């Protein structure tokens, strides 16, 4: 126990400043009313869905939970069921084999809900494109609010995407 406490004290607090939202990531008009977003406040529950990704974006989504980015410190956490979620975080080109699972997850998420698509493949199909096995971009299958490009996007960009979806557009324009 002594060693653990010593290590924790020695490590100190590594968490860095939270990035600001980036309106350029928004791909559709803000769908949710400001009041609803205010209700979400800082306490957001995210259900993650890999819809066919290569596992690169997943690495960076894991990283947003590390001590440097500490997404949970913002009151935003990943939950195990879409029934508990306010937001879906979706990666991948959507493989045709995942259409049903992705749509069921979307339907199981209670309204009002947000969708953030992560990565170049989620944006436009990436290198995998559209084919007999891939439906390409996430918005081909479910509505998407914010897209975070990158292969894979950095944890900072992923956080920006999540925060952009959570922040009302007019707030930034004003």
């Amino acid at each position, binding site marked *: 126990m002594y060693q653990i406490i010593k*290590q924790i004290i020695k490590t100190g607090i590594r968490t860095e400043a939270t990035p600001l939202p980036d309106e350029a990531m928004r791909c559709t008009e803000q769908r949710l009313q400001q009041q609803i977003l205010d209700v979400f406040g800082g306490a957001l529950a995210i259900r993650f869905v*890999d819809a066919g990704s290569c*596992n690169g974006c997943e690495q960076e989504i894991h990283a947003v939970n590390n001590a440097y980015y500490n997404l949970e410190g913002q009151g935003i956490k990943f939950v195990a069921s879409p029934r508990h979620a306010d937001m879906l975080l979706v990666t991948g080109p959507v493989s045709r084999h995942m259409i049903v699972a992705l749509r069921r997850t979307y339907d199981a998420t209670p309204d009002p809900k947000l969708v953030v698509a992560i990565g170049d493949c989620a944006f436009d199909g990436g290198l995998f494109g559209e084919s007999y*096995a891939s439906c390409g971009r996430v918005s081909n299958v479910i509505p998407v609010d914010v897209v975070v490009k990158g292969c894979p996007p950095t944890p900072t960009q992923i956080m920006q995407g999540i925060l952009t979806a959570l922040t009302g557009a007019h707030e930034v324009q004003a």
Partner: protein
Amino acid sequence: MPITHPGLQLTKLPGALPVWQATIAPDDLRPVCQNVADGGGRLLALWGSDQRATQFGFALHVVLLNEAGMVCLHLPLSAEQPVYPDISSIFPVANRMQRAAYDLLGIYASEARDHRKWLRHASWHSGSFPLRKDFADTPPFSLEALEAKSGKSAKAKRAKLMTKQMDVATDTPTEQPQAASQAELDDYPFVQVEGQGVHEIPVGPVHAGIIEPGHFRFSIVGEKVLRLEQRFGYTHKGIEKRFENMSLERGAKLAGRVSGDSTVAYAWGYAMAAESIADVTPPDYALWLRGLFLERERIANHLGDLGYLGNDVAFSFGFAQFWILKEQVLRNNAALFGHRYLMDKIIPGGVTVGLAESGKQTLLEECSLLEGEARRLRSIYEEHAAVQDRFIGAGCVAPTLASRLGLCGLAGRASSQSWDMRAQFPCPPYDKLDVQMATHHNGDVAARVIVRFDELFESLRLQREIITNLVGGDLLLQFPAHLPPDGFGIGVVEGWRGEVMVAIHTDAKGNLARVHPHDPSWQNWPVLEHAIMGNVVPDFPLINKSFNLSYSGQDL
């Protein structure tokens, strides 16, 4: 020469790897495989290709591995009856690969016991085969078409049926549209376990954590797992079809995205295969940098896994600490090489980025930091009774079982399977590094943790050694835009998870005719089904994490 068999003419493929190839008759396949298996050898990969444009119909390709090297056997199959003798009774690991070869190409293993589909769900029909050159690609995805086909029409059908039933109470066969459309999606016949008190837990494809999609079907009594059956293919996104006719350069990018956590291993495997076909050797400097990248990938992944293994036994301190270390490795990657995971840094002919003198200093400092911290954390893990109580004895794979099922890579080494390409068939720069293989004989989660720690320290030593010996030079040699025609080459790299193989076939013009990436997860997923038997359900996440296998790498 790794194999001798009457009439078998082996030709060495160019390159540093000890790989030979031979064309073989169907009748010789099983005896040769049996010969290799009896000598303690393994099956590395199995795939098929459509050769109808050239000499014969289809071809089956099998790579066998023993202590003397690797042999790629090419088995010509007729266009009308592409059938080959089953080898899954010799190498159980061939089972899923043979089924995938049928799903994608329509080549059939006669007398195999299991002919269920593997990668195919419902996105293409059982009679059509995507990797055949005459496969007509389906029209682009459209949600409207999907809804018209399933959802809405099913609804309409159901409504119609209901009115019908209300109108005339006849004995019309009760149609169940919901179930029917469901069956159309994926009617996979799982093995049923029957008996008093046995029930099933279906898990996935969408999992509870930040994990790739796949389906697990547990048959349990109480908390004890009697049987686990996996169902994969959810992330099948047509990678192999995508490779066809791609430029060599773009192919390198795609290879680096077969499994994102092993991008260096795949990119190197792809480059190695292309370089073997072109018969060129990249500059020394590039080869040493490739070694550095591969070890950094191993370090990052092992640190991440060690953190998650702590997390999975409710020791979140471990996650917090190890992920700080992993983040530092990733940040150094971004600062020195321009990408946190080193994607697209290895291309055929060399590498795209060098290492400046100041960078060497940064990496040496990183080595010292990681060595100190990981040593402290290791002693904390080892002395923590609750952590060890969960690790020891969980998910045990005995060495005999591991050997029979062909368990490989990191998980194999934790069950006494001493295979490590870097130590056994050292390609430059490993020929000058004397890699010490880490092994353990217990085969449980604790053993896989120990092997990870040992490999982490060995990789840090290798990184230090590489940096000290790194002499500048050319990063890249002039690589032809097209490979020689009708070429074949393979690259095999010891990724952090195990042996990653990439095979390239070129056509008459030197374009990519067929690229087959092979992930060690093909070997190790079936063993996980055995590792969980007799354990309790709540230990599954821990045991699964201790293997940490790729879905995307095997779904392709």
